[in-house]
């Protein structure tokens, strides 16, 4: 048995699941009110709040976002739009 099937703790970050996406959520920073709803509803925890011009704004980590669209659906100001993924 050459390949080990054992997975060490804190190694799930190695599995970049962003390639699974067919739709890509894009945030319109100007519309974002920094309410943090998207960070709470994202099932993968890929949305974080960052400071821009001293205001909190949502930012998506595309390495892991699977493109489920929950954030776009829940955004109260429709600042997130799902666009077909293209390479």
């Amino acid at each position, binding site marked *: 048995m050459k390949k080990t099937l*054992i*997975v060490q*703790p804190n190694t799930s970050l190695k599995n970049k699941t962003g390639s699974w996406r067919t739709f890509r959520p894009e945030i319109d920073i100007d519309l974002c009110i920094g309410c943090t709803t998207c960070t709470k509803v994202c099932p993968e925890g890929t949305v974080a709040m960052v400071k821009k011009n001293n205001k909190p704004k949502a930012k998506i980590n595309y390495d892991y976002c699977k493109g489920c669209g929950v954030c776009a659906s829940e955004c109260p100001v429709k600042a997130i739009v799902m666009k077909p993924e293209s390479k």
Partner: protein
Amino acid sequence: MPRTKPLQILEGSRAIALTVKNIAPAVISAYPITPQTHIVEDLAKFKANGEADYEYVRAESEFAAASIVLGASATGVRTYSATSSQGLLLMTEVLFNIAGLRLPIVMTCANRALSAPINIWNDHQDVMVIRDSGWILLFAENHQEAIGQHIMAYKIAEATKLPVMINVDGYIITHSYEPAWIPDKKTIRKYLGEYQPTSGEYLDPDNPVTIGAFATPNDYMEIRQELHEDLVASQKIIDKEYFNYQKIFETKTKKSQIEDNGLIEYVGPKNPQVILVAMGSILGTIRATIKANKLENKIGILKIKTYRPFPKEAIAEIIFKTKNIAVIEKALSLGQEGPLTLDIKALLLNRTTKTNIQNYIVGLGGRDITTGMIKKIINDIIKTKQNLGSKFVNK
């Protein structure tokens, strides 16, 4: 039969239970209701009477029993379970996981028919369902062979990181009485040694790891390929342990290693007119038929002890001695023919000599297999042309 050993008249299930008790696994789990055998009933009794100190977990189903031994084995201890027929089918999902997770679990399958119609008697249809699961599948002809295979199984499983299932014919072995010798705990301990799981590859709260995580298309294929390659390569270890066992337990035979090894056994002339191929307890009936009809110089008998991994080279070495092969099976791939027949037919692809090979289906659902039926099969393979389908020998 080792003539110098102290023999007891034992029921097959009890012989296996006494052997497992002497192997002393840490955890045993089983579901106690039909189609279970006395094996786990006896093991539960030993524990209740204070004669054994393994953890005995009575599960709520066979699915749970298999899952419990899976979990226990993942913590790095020896485990054991036993089941049969519909119970094996309920375990199926977990059995594939056990092999995939490379856990050295040992279990017994008392081979019995599958529903419908409901039938609790012996045939090999249950084990054929999990033929492709990645388990090492051994078949025992009698009580003594089953005892030896159970002890060897732990050594093979731990050396290969593959689970091993010992198949014993339901009722014919599990419920019949025969003289048998149970190796003592001390010699078994000497042969098996203490089980040492590979460091960092078992569940331990002090060194947390994940076992059984998912694998993306990037890894899955290589993992399965390796499981297959390790299973094929395990033939060497099965063979090695067979001779190692004979040495430590002093049960050496004088037979050649080509004709008697961990994978197969051949009895018969150098150039037999016919070779009969079979697995399990039916070999006893075949031997009796050959002896009663004085056919020792005409007919060869090939016993398959290890069905998965399929011992291609070891079988080819024997069956190429003849032009007539009769494969006698208690299982059927519905809509095709006997699974063992298909495996053996594949070996003949590169053979230039025209070979007559025929599948005979016998004993489904516990139908008695008589010496008369074996005689009929011998006459048929010699006199009748081969038929691409299976021939059913009902009486």
